[in-house]
C-alpha cells in the first residue's frame, strides 16, 4: 500500500465581514402566567425593545432590530446589526420582568451570521 501525500483540506465558509447576526430566541413566562401563543408580533417587538431600552438606554434602542418570523410558543428569529449583536444579546438575557410585573425570560437558542444556519439545530438531532 502506498503512503499518500499529506492531504491538506480546509473548509472556508466566508472571511468577509457580515452585516447582520441572526438570533433565534424564545420567550417564556414563569408558571405560564401569560400565554405566549397569544402574543402578537407588535407585542413581542415591544418586549424586545423594553429589554434593550432597560440595559442600553434610548441610544441603544435606536439600533435597527427586526423580527423576521414569529412562531408559536414564543419562538422568533431576530436580525440585528453584527456590531451591536453582543450587546443586544446581553440585553435580552438580562430582561426578567415585563412592564406589568410578570416574570419572563428570553432564551437565545441559536445565533449565526447566516440565516440558513438557523434552519436546523444540531441539538435536536437524534
Amino acid at each position, binding site marked *: 500500500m502506498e503512503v499518500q501525500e499529506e492531504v491538506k483540506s480546509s473548509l472556508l465558509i466566508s472571511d468577509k465581514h457580515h452585516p447582520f447576526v441572526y438570533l433565534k430566541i424564545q420567550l417564556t413566562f414563569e408558571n405560564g402566567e401569560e400565554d405566549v401563543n397569544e402574543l402578537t408580533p407588535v407585542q413581542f417587538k415591544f418586549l424586545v425593545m423594553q429589554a434593550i431600552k432597560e*440595559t442600553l*438606554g434610548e441610544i*441603544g434602542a435606536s439600533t435597527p432590530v427586526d423580527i423576521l418570523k414569529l412562531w408559536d410558543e414564543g419562538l422568533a428569529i431576530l436580525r440585528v446589526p453584527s456590531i451591536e449583536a453582543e*450587546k443586544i444579546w446581553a440585553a435580552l438575557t438580562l430582561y426578567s420582568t415585563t412592564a406589568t410585573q410578570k416574570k419572563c425570560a428570553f432564551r437565545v437558542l441559536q445565533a449565526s451570521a447566516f440565516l440558513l444556519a438557523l434552519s436546523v439545530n444540531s441539538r435536536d438531532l437524534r
Partner: protein
Amino acid sequence: MVRFKNRYALCEVIVPGQENGSINFTKSKLYRAIKQSIISNHGDYGIGALDQSLRVIYINTGTRIVLIRAERKYFHMVTSAIIFIRKIGLHDVIFKTLHVGGSIRQCFKFLIKYHQKSFPSMYQSCQTEDDKIKVLESIIDACDASTSVKALMDKIS
C-alpha cells in the same frame, strides 16, 4: 503600573433667554442631572461603566463653565448624554462642549485662550466708560499668561 486614563470635558452651560446671566446650581445637582441623563440614554450598561469615574471637577457660576471628568474608554457616552440634558432642577439649560482634554491643566489652558478671544466682543458690548476701562485692565492682566494657569489650578485644589 498602569495609569487610570481620564478625559475631561469643558462645557458651557447656556440658559435660553438670558445669554449673559449666571447659573445657580451646585456640583451635586449637576452630577445628578448627568447621571440621570446617562441612565435614560445609555441604560444600566452606561451607568455601570461610568459610575466609578464620573465627577464634576469645577463649576463656575459666573462664567457658566463646568468641567466634567470620566473614564476615557467610555467617555463618548458622557459627551452624548450631556447634550440631552434640558433641565437642571428648575432651570432650562443647554450644554455646549467647548473642549475635550486629557488633563485638567490642558482644559484650563484652553479655557484661558477661550476667554481671551472673547475680550474684543466684551469691549464692544460695554455701555459705560468705566466698563471699558475694566475690560482693558483685564486684557492687560491676561497678557501675563504664566501666572493665570497656576491661579486657576490653585483655585480648585
